[in-house]
């Protein structure tokens, strides 16, 4: 991934606080495998900071950014609901 790539004009930084380091790490691992869209148009980096999940999105375009961010947030909501109700 080219961090200094100027073609990614739009970015979004998202922080999600979990209850524990384990939960944040689980969320990161669950999200990691799936490609979202073409890497030349959209990229996302997942990391954790203590109990927080951090998602850094980059995109060439607002529309693609919205779609990609939405897709990931939907997955995060499922992860949160799964842990809440079943674990």
């Amino acid at each position: 991934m080219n961090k200094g790539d100027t073609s990614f004009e739009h970015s979004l930084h998202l922080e999600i606080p979990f209850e524990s380091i384990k939960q944040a790490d689980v969320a990161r691992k669950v999200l990691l495998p799936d490609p979202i869209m073409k890497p030349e148009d959209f990229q996302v980096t997942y990391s954790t900071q203590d109990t927080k999940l951090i998602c850094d999105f980059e995109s060439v375009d607002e529309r693609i950014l919205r779609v990609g961010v939405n897709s990931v947030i939907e997955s995060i909501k499922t992860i949160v609901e799964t842990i809440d109700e079943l674990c």
Partner: protein
Amino acid sequence: MSLPHATYTGPKSTHEFEVDPSDPRYQTTEGRTTGASDYVLKQGHQDVDKPSDPKKVDNVNSKTGIDQYTTLSQLRMQLTGLQDDINEYLTEKINHVKKPRNSKQEQEINDLLDGSEET
């Protein structure tokens, strides 16, 4: 527990998305921007597939009688409101700048939402 939040940075602007837990926008699991698609609603479809309700903590606060929700349920509701904020903000920006529709990007978006024919 701290709150979820986001920051958008674009070529012409930046925007902070903050969650206000006392605002009803962040107290529901039913997002405004994540309902059934317009297409099916127009066909008269009744939406029976809304997200599940937040989970209540067993001991109701006896003083106020108000239900307490689990931390993760609160997170889910806050995230739902935050998602709506992000969607509405970006949609406004998209509509504001009338760009010609890029068919290649359209296809990419449709592929993500509906799945493509490729493996």
